[in-house]
């Protein structure tokens, strides 16, 4: 059963690639998806990034009780945890819920109401027209959201530290540049591309192959989110083990 599903998932990915019937229409679909996935998720990404950044500063300061540890260490911890883990992983887990459920329910609804069959009969490669633009759009916009999330989280951390009197702006900025390794940014981007692919392809798979009615669309949507989250966490560990050790 699991192997059959995996095989069908791979076939779906393979079948997406064929010469588009009309490049303009595919481009339009891609831009629409960029707007849906990127701009549509902007609000939630901004909110969670600001709060995660702020909370990170406060909690890190709470744990660093030794007077011999300089205050700038707080900024270093906030920077590294935002770039390495919070921005790519937490943001993508939230996006698995927001974007993943939207993709699965949209495709599921199209399947159940025979819209996919209608496209198929017109002679359109439905996997290419419906799924490929979603995956490409996710690969373009999700890393952008992750980068934005990193900046916002660190900025919110600085504000939270200053407002609560934990750390001065000068110490925070000093901590930010101390021992900075650009490699972690590369690592965060690798993670965000991987997670973007996981979210968009798994959700598309569950939506595209829905059978039944409205109830099944809901189930497929939930399944898409749960399975995407599990694979994000698995990939998170695998990438950390592979690229950081």
């Amino acid at each position, binding site marked *: 059963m699991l192997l059959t599903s995996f095989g069908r998932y791979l076939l779906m990915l393979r079948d997406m690639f064929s010469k588009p019937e009309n490049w303009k229409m595919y481009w339009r679909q891609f831009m629409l998806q960029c707007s849906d996935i990127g701009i549509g998720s902007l609000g939630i990404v901004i909110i969670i990034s600001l709060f995660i950044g702020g909370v990170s500063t406060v909690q890190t300061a709470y744990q660093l009780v030794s007077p011999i540890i300089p205050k700038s260490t707080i900024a270093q911890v906030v920077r590294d945890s935002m770039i390495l883990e919070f921005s790519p992983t937490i943001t993508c887990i939230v996006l698995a819920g927001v974007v993943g459920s939207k993709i699965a329910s949209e495709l599921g609804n199209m399947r159940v*109401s025979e*819209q996919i069959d*209608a496209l*198929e*009969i017109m002679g*359109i490669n439905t996997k290419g027209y419906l799924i490929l633009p979603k995956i490409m759009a996710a690969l373009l916009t999700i890393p952008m959201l992750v980068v934005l999330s990193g900046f916002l989280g660190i900025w919110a951390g600085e504000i939270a530290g200053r407002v609560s009197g934990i750390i001065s702006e000068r110490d925070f900025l000093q901590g930010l540049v101390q021992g900075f390794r650009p490699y972690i940014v590369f690592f965060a981007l690798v993670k965000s591309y991987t997670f973007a692919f996981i979210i968009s392809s798994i959700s598309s798979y569950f939506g595209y192959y829905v059978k039944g009615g409205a109830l099944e669309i809901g189930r497929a949507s939930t399944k898409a989110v749960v399975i995407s989250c599990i694979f994000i966490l698995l990939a998170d560990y695998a990438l950390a083990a592979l690229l950081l050790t």
Partner: protein
Amino acid sequence: MIELIGVSKGFGGKAVLQDISAVMEAGKTNLIIGTSGSGKTVLMKCMVGLFDIDEGQILYNKSDFFSMTEKERKVIRQEIGMLFQGTALFDSMTVEQNVMFPLQMFSNMSYRDRMKRVNFCLERVNLKDTNKKYPAEISGGMKKRVGIARSIVLNPKYLFCDEPNSGLDPQTSMVIDKLIRELTVEYNITTVINTHDMNSVMEIGDNILYLYQGHKQWEGSSRDIIYSKDEKLNSFIFASEFLQEAKRMRQLDMEKKQTL
């Protein structure tokens, strides 16, 4: 013209269609009738290539659909228009965008020409002032008409209609039937209709294929039905006393015409 030669199809070891052979002629309305679960929709989905068949051949103008390359199939598919039972209109698009979609995808027409064609098709199905409305904002009968307009916008050679009258009142059903019939004759389309509607059977059935438990039980025209001695067909078509009475009346009427 579409020819079915010994078409069989099953799911999970259970035969749904068994050895179906028939000819669907151009310029005629070819009806597939039968009780629920008799295999009508499966047969139609096989004909348009949504399901693969297990045995037999489906020929589009003498070319076997299932032996074609993917590219050749795409060409045939662009000659097919289909009206779905639930209309399958794209709910995120307006009526105008729905009808224009196949043109945008497959033609190089300018926007002005596309609009002209869209308006012509919408007028042809008697729809006015609905261009900017979404499918959710129009009635069931109107949705069917938009579905028909979308099906004919690329001048198809083949038109498939799955239960075109389901969920419609008798008057609207007649309007839809009449429209399908007119388009079939006007553009010499090979039209295949799945239906339960006995009024459609009697009014527009040029060629009728009756399926019973997955095999072809009877074939003929709406005129032949009146004189058919096939018990299964008669108990399906003339299920109520009212319809049996109507059949007797129609028989008398036809006999009178013959003697005159």
